[in-house]
């Protein structure tokens, strides 16, 4: 792994790697975890809130139950969860907003989700090839609805690649989270079950108990007859989920303790 080839975005290494892009991906691994999963009637986005400094003026924030860094609305039918450098993310989010509205101006319809994801991915790719600018250190999880494919969840990387997913995790401990999702995500979970699963994963990856200060949820929901709508869960709703998740975890632990004792007792 030669470091001679990592000085520029526009240089391949002899093994065919773009180091700057890989470093960008590594920087995302330091950002708080964000999870997206398809549930019944919507796409659920869950994120670990970044630790809040005591001196932060939260009273004057628009919404106290969302950190403005992790889950952001692009348009009525599209929202993203962010992992990575916040400033890079803000630039891309603004671009996404303008692009989606330009599409509406030109075609009188909300932009299809994949179309927007493709466009953002192309922008990201451009910064890995053209102009010798550093790549965006951001990964997005896009939750959106369009009449063509219905509810969709996409993930885009700094290299400009994107895929559609049923469930995906980005950020810190994303591999662990992804394994847990693979084991426990099921088709057609209700949003509540999805939130419990997300809370469990977030708590486990953080090696702590789930708490309201650490978790935020948003559901890009679509029911028949009404337009798609991003519902950002209020603190009370999050608290209900978090309490239940903690209770389930406690019960499981008690169960394990019991089984352990029985085993030892048996021996």
């Amino acid at each position, binding site marked *: 792994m030669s470091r001679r080839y990592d000085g520029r975005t526009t240089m391949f290494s002899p093994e065919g790697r773009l180091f700057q892009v890989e470093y960008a991906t590594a920087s995302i691994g330091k950002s708080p975890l964000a999870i997206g999963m398809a549930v019944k009637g919507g796409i659920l986005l869950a994120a670990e809130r970044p630790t809040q400094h005591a001196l932060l003026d939260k009273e004057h924030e*628009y*919404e106290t139950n969302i950190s403005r860094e992790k889950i952001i*609305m*692009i*348009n009525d039918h599209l929202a993203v969860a962010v992992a990575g450098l916040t400033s890079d993310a803000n630039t891309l989010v*603004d671009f996404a*907003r*303008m692009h989606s*509205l*330009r599409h*509406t*101006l030109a075609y009188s319809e909300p932009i299809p989700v994949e179309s927007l994801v493709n466009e953002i991915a192309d922008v990201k790719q451009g910064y890995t090839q053209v102009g010798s600018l550093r790549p965006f250190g951001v990964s997005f999880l896009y939750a959106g609805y369009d009449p063509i494919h219905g509810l969709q969840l996409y993930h885009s990387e700094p290299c400009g690649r994107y895929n559609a997913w049923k469930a995906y995790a980005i950020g810190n401990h994303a591999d662990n989270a992804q394994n847990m999702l693979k084991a426990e995500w099921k088709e057609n979970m209700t949003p509540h079950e999805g939130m419990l699963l997300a809370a469990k994963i977030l708590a486990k990856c953080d090696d702590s108990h789930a708490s309201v200060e650490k978790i935020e949820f948003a559901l890009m929901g679509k029911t028949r007859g009404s337009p798609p709508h991003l519902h950002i869960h209020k603190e009370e709703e999050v608290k209900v989920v978090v309490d239940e998740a903690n209770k389930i975890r406690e019960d499981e632990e008690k169960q394990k303790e019991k089984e352990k004792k029985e085993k030892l007792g048996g021996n």
Partner: protein
Amino acid sequence: KATVSVLYCVQSLASPMTCVNDTMHDLRDVNFVKAMLPASKQQSEIDELMAADKTLKNVKLPVCPRPSAIPKLNLEKGTTTLGIVVKDGIVLCVDSRASTGEFIASRTTQKVLPMGKTILGTMAGGAADCQYWERVLGVECRLWELRNKTTITVAAASKILAGISYSRRNSGLCMGTLVAGWDEFGPQLYTVDDQGTRLKGDKFSQGSGSVYALGILEEHRTDMSIEEGIDLGRRAVMHATHRDAYSGGYVQVYVVRAPDENGHCWERVSRDDVQDLYKKAHEDGTAGCFKDLF
């Protein structure tokens, strides 16, 4: 003969005022040919052209007016739109006729365009200009909401549109709009012009029928109730459509009020055929100023 008449129609649609070069020219007219050619052409080339002309002996071709000869378009903004601020909101009334020259292109034009939940814009003048730029304004209002997480003020929205008009004031835009909405300052009504004029007020009317409507609107007071305002506005458009050839169709009444629980400020109150209204008004005897005498 049929082709000639079509060409004449095309000319008059493009320039409703008198066209300068109406006559047919004979291409055998040397002076005419010379005038049409660029100055760089040599005499020999002109002779060649004249020689080739022999095949066109008996054909008189119509003349296309040269660019400098196209007269200034004086589109009178054939429409009637009006907006009045009343005690608890704003009443907007528009007609629904679109005319191209003397032809009524549509009697069901939509001349009110919403910009989100809180702002309405009306259209007078060139339909294309109004529709396009008001949709752009709608996009800018939405971008504002997404970026600033708050609804845009009417002052800002009208300023955006005025900026658009002013930067293009010499391009021949023909657009008269009323921007009406409810924000934290209450009901706000602005008029924005294709020259970039932007005025705030309680009572505006635009279009060719505005002269008639403004006469009826003299009874307007800012402390009228919304129902009185609706009645007044509707009557004003009705009378204007009666006398103005370029207004007609339906009168649509929109009202802007304080936001409801969803943040929605405007609604469409009614849509009446002006001819029915006029007939009814005369049956009732409520056509105008005589009602107080009886």
